[in-house]
């Protein structure tokens, strides 16, 4: 099924944030083609301008995502052609690599990723009602065989990394006698991996086509900063605060973490901070320098480094976020990570945004 054309022009990049920044894109996307046509004609953006840096860095992030989703697609096919324990381990590793590459660019909520709910296609989250499992189970029942086309036209809950994670890691499947190498599971694995690789290819191409428009449209500076702010809000207030029971109800809930099935939620958080550091911070530094706000550059670098260091130290202990929630000591460690990440959020969303005069709009905290 092809969604109605008009739907492609407006979409939300992830479940929680229906950020106002995205509205700017409604207009921007309409001009995507025009922007591409202008590419040769205009040269106002220099390579050192903040948006030129952001465009190049995010392009790098998308290229990595494309490479790793392709590798995942191939690993899926290898595994399904000749299933073995080692091929399964390899496949799980490739899933992790690609999922982490997604986490690194997850904050980008404008541009081609905003078309057709693509962010949800990569990762439908949060999924409190376990739609991922239910929609995947549909393809594992009654002799159905999934194809990439069928997956692309169906529920978004079964299109992305979480559905693959379900097939590769979920304990309940083994309990029901379902193995990843079963014909139906393999059909679904390859269909989803193929769909992801296809989406990553399109996002890459469209990000390139977006270049001139992005670099020559001044309002997209704020859009980019908003994206990072929203990404940090989601990271702190949802991805961390929800499992810790620090948001809404005071109850720990391991299922509210990014990757509870595979136990790599700490890794996803780390990757998202890495993404901020690699693909957002360089452009931001240039912007701060351009505006004479050099004094904010060192605090930015220091805070990014210390937040990353804290999370890496936790990862080294080789306990998953879910396991940490079960002990007082683990919970206390996660609390201090929460504080550390909150400081990063406070710095970027508060101090830096205020200094840059970035105005906030409706965002993820609006709904309930």
């Amino acid at each position, binding site marked *: 099924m092809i969604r109605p054309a008009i739907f492609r022009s407006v*979409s939300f990049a992830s479940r929680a944030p229906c950020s106002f920044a995205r509205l700017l894109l409604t207009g921007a996307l309409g001009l995507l083609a025009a922007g591409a046509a202008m590419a040769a004609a205009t040269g106002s953006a220099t390579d050192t301008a903040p948006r030129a840096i952001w465009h190049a860095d995010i392009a790098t992030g998308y290229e990595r995502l494309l490479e790793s989703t392709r590798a995942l697609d191939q690993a899926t096919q290898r595994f399904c052609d000749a299933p073995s324990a080692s091929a399964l381990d390899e496949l799980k590793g490739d899933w992790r690599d690609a999922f982490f590459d997604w986490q690194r660019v997850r904050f980008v909520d404008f541009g081609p990723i905003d078309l057709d*709910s693509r962010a949800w296609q990569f990762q439908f989250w949060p999924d409190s*009602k376990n739609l991922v499992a239910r929609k995947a189970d549909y393809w594992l029942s009654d002799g159905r065989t999934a194809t990439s086309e069928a997956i692309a036209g169906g529920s978004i809950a079964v299109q992305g990394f979480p559905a693959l994670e379900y097939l590769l890691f979920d304990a309940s499947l083994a309990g029901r006698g379902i193995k990843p190498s079963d014909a139906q599971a393999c059909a679904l694995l390859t269909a989803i991996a193929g769909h992801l690789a296809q989406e990553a290819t399109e996002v890459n191409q469209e990000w390139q086509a977006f270049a001139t428009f992005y670099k020559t449209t001044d309002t997209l500076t704020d859009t980019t900063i908003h994206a990072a702010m929203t990404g940090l809000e989601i990271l702190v207030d949802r991805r961390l605060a929800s499992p810790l029971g620090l948001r809404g109800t005071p109850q720990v809930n391991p299922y509210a973490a990014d990757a509870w099935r595979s136990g790599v939620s700490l890794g996803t958080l780390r990757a998202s901070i890495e993404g901020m550091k690699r693909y957002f911070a360089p452009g931001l530094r240039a912007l701060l320098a351009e505006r004479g706000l050099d004094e904010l550059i060192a605090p930015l670098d220091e805070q990014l480094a210390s937040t990353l260091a804290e999370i890496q130290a936790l990862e080294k202990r080789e306990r998953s976020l879910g396991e940490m929630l079960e002990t007082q000591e683990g919970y206390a460690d996660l609390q201090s990570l929460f504080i550390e990440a909150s400081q990063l959020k406070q710095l970027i969303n508060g101090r830096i945004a205020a200094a840059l005069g970035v*105005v906030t709009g409706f965002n993820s905290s609006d*709904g309930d």
Partner: protein
Amino acid sequence: MPVSRFSLRPIAVVIAASAAATLSLTAHSDSTADQTSKQAVTQAAVVKNYTDLAFATFQDALTAAKALDAATDALIKAPSEETLKAAKQAWLAARVPYMQTEVLRFGNAIVDNWEGQLNAWPLDEGLIDYVDTGDYHYALGNAGAKANIIASQTINIGGESIDVSTLTPELLASLNEIGGSEANVATGYHAIEFLLWGQDLHGFEPGAGERPVTDYAQNDNCTHGNCERRATYLDAATDLLVNDLEWMVAQWSPDDADNYRAELLAMQPSAVIKKMLFGMGSLSLGELAGERMKVALEANSFEDEHDCFSDNTHNSHFYDAKGIQNVYLGTYTRINGSTVEGPSLAGLVAEANPELDATLTAQLETTMNAVGVMKKKAEAETKPVTFDMLIAPGNAEGAKVVSDSIVALVQQTGSIEKVARELGIESMQPDDAGHAF
């Protein structure tokens, strides 16, 4: 159409606060409006009218909830197809004014902190009563999802043991979010909806919940057990709803010098204007377009349907959107057909930027038309198509109906933000506006 609405809109109608003694707000004739239309609209007058609208809407919600309470009492007293049907009708009618109050939620913490007890959603209904275990999907990690209060004297949730032998409004209220899960909703419209309709086991096919009236039979005909406790539960939940609404009506009453309305009127008018716009934008975008439509549509998930037991989702969406329009235009059509109207945001914007006002007024109308299509499809006499059918996999036509509404809501939100800027409100984030950095 937008132009004519605009010119007909009374700009400075004064709502007779004195009429509040009889708990009714009077409508004003157009001639009154014409005489006063030359006066400049002040922010203070707009704020005052906003509190009047809120008061009238909550009053209507209370009136309709009392009718629901009476209808459920009649059902409990004499369970029959007729009394069950009348109770369902009363529930549907009660949603009409209540949903128009939702725009007051965001921005007014007093409403937002209170409304969970009335309209929390989605809920894991297995907390309340029996469910079809083969077709029941609850929130991951919710220890209370299958507690079944009606069938139990004691429930155990997350290591906590709770005596539920006597079902009172206070007990039910205390059970909300028990065990720390937001999906544990023991009270409010949706709990009552579940008690009247039961689970909708039709998936994407036509049909709503089909709870048999014998679930309330106080004799050997009782189905699914515990009919007496089920009736007591329904009675307590409807009583609580009335109580809660009475409290909120009092908060907006013009007769009290020490309530929330008085607090708002004592504030800088621009701070209240900001609350108004924040409510409109938050409901339009994050909540209605996002959580209530987009998730359900994109995931083909009828579990994410707002009124999933009764299949009344189209009306919830319609009257949510209506509430947004009400706040902007400064008008509200009461359940008795009379109109409350007065100085409006639209009037303020029209003075500052007539083009923006015309745009937003037209966009709000476009939204009403879009959700109107949804309502019309659901209420068609032949082959009605309800929201859970619109979002079925492969239903391109249905998807378009929903996405048209989403697009319209997103577009109006853009203009709401422009209005905020036009009126000098810089940040729409309520907590750290302009300071605390």
